[in-house]
């Protein structure tokens, strides 16, 4: 069994590559300097937070979760409760308890609290649900999402019902979003090489053998569930501070499926897959949007018909999955071939081959 320090030495190059990649994207965006493009990139960083956070649970446990966007909903609404000016809250959300009604916190504090709220909720729900595995667990998480959505859509005095709550301060710029994305990637990396993460991956790959080796799969799953809920709660808070508006349907099936697709297209069982999945799919979506608007080619504008963009992205995903059923990264991590400290295998996969140029 490898020692912990050497595990870090062997695998940290992945983390460095991913962080550098994210920073590079932010810097290039700033250099381009176009406002709409910057907003697209901020949104992409938030998606990185969501998908990497989702990966902490789904990737390590092998259980597909349809429920994590529920945590995003919890986080976003918590951010709204903590940061909207009290005068506005008195009018739009009369049912808030008084300590919330008068609160106006710094947005970073509110984001941390939002994550905490999601984590506590996950701890309570997870205690019950993590006993399930396979498709039953997936359906249970979906049911959880539906419950959260129903409650937030109808609890008018506290959540504003199906309408939107406005007045959340705009605090998430590109650097905040970058910071958030890096934070979640670091958390995901640390969890993945932690004792619990390794145990959970063992349980994912061979449940019987892992259980026989004394791994309590339910407990490890719960740990992963809570950590990933925290990161997604924070992501939800940053998203609320990015849009300035929240409404329950923004946190339902649409985001659930797009984030899951990004994870699976990237490679469900690797952190690099989670990050690359977001970057690749977001890039393709952006390219198609530009095509839809039309590109100027020597005086003639070439544009694809409206609505074709969505069809194309669906087809692209199908084609990618056809040729790479286990995702773009084939479930491996990006590594730097010439990394000087420590060589060998990570998670039982020989990493002699580099796949750093997927993008």
């Amino acid at each position: 069994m490898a020692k912990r320090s050497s595990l870090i030495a062997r695998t940290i190059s992945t983390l460095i590559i991913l962080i550098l990649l994210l920073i590079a994207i932010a810097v290039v965006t700033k250099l381009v300097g176009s406002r709409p493009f910057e907003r697209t990139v901020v949104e992409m960083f938030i998606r990185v937070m969501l998908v990497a956070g989702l990966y902490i649970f789904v990737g390590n446990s092998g259980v597909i979760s349809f429920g994590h966007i529920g945590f995003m909903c919890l986080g976003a609404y918590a951010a709204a409760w903590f940061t909207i000016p009290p005068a506005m809250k008195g009018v739009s959300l009369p049912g808030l308890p008084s300590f919330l009604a008068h609160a106006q916190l710094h947005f970073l504090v509110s984001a941390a609290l939002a994550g905490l709220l999601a984590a506590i909720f996950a701890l309570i729900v997870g205690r019950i649900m993590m006993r399930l595995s396979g498709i039953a667990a997936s359906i249970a998480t979906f049911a959880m999402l539906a419950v959260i959505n129903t409650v937030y859509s109808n609890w008018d005095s506290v959540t504003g019902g199906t309408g939107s709550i406005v007045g959340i301060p705009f605090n998430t710029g590109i650097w905040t979003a970058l910071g958030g994305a890096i934070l979640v990637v670091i958390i995901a990396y640390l969890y993945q090489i932690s004792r619990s993460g390794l145990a959970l991956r063992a349980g994912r790959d061979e449940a019987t053998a892992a259980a026989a080796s004394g791994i309590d799969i339910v407990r490890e799953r719960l740990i992963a569930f809570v950590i990933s809920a925290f990161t997604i709660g924070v992501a939800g808070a940053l998203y609320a501070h990015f849009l300035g508006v929240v409404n329950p349907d923004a946190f339902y099936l649409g985001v659930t499926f797009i984030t899951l697709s990004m994870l699976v297209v990237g490679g469900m069982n690797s952190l690099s897959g989670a990050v690359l999945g977001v970057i690749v799919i977001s890039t393709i979506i952006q390219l198609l949007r530009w095509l839809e608007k039309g590109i100027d080619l020597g005086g003639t504008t070439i544009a694809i018909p409206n609505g074709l963009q969505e069809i194309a992205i669906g087809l692209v995903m199908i084609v990618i999955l056809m040729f790479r059923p286990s995702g773009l990264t084939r479930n491996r991590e990006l590594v730097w071939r010439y990394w000087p400290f420590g060589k060998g295998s990570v998670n039982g996969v020989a990493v002699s081959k580099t796949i750093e140029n997927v993008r």
Partner: protein
Amino acid sequence: MTAVLQVIFDALSLGSLYALGALGIALIFGVMRLVNFAHGDYISFCVFAMLWPSIDAAAIVFAGNLPTVILIPLILAIGAGLSVLSEILIFRRFRNANPATMMIASFALGFVIKNFLLMLFSSRPKSIDLWSNLSLPVEIAGARIPLLQVITIIITIVILLGLTAFLKRTRFGLEMRAAAENFTMARMLGVKANRVIMLAFAISGMLAAAIGLILATQSGTADIQMGVSVMLVAFIATVIGGLGSLPGAVIAGFLIGGASVLMQVILPLDARPFRDAFVYGAVIACLIWRPQGLFAPKSTKQRV
């Protein structure tokens, strides 16, 4: 008494829709372990096929104007065709992929179909005038029940009986049941994989078309989202019933339909908007109670 009868009919007709949907999903899951998220979009596609080529808001129905005896087989054929086509073009290539990959592929396909419909018909709901005289009430034991509800229930029972006869009495049915039980073993004993899978897709597509016809008649509108909500509940019903068990899927469909209608009646007024939260809470409780489903076949029991 009449109120009780009304509730029973409401529950049965809603349950019928869910049961038909769950059956369509369970059939495909049984033979290829695919959770087909495109199923809801097959339903919408079949509804909109009745409008095509008209894209007006007050639809001048083309296919819908055909006489019933032609319209119903036509829509069923469209559903089956779309379903089989997606098998041949897409799902066939995912036979050996893991379930998550297949699930996302089916979701992507549903996304494509939905946006194709959006591009053609735009997102505004359209009105469909299909057998509108069916919404007239009939009197049964003192209660006034919409004729359509009665017909929905009867049609569902007929479909279920027909399918049962098909599965139990014919060679194809036997092959399909064997494949659902243990696909590898069935292949070794001479069941042709492609034929069985295509058949499952065809039947599943026809079930989607049947749901589409019922939904369109019931609501009088064609909405791109209409299939998805049925599909989600049907998907849950499939799991609660025990994946791989066809009778389980049907019974669970009726159970969820019944639970929704019942909760609408018995919940206190303040809690009624939260009805779905209670229904889904019951779903979680049911899964915790029996993770393998209410009627799980022995072959799918997990060892650990």
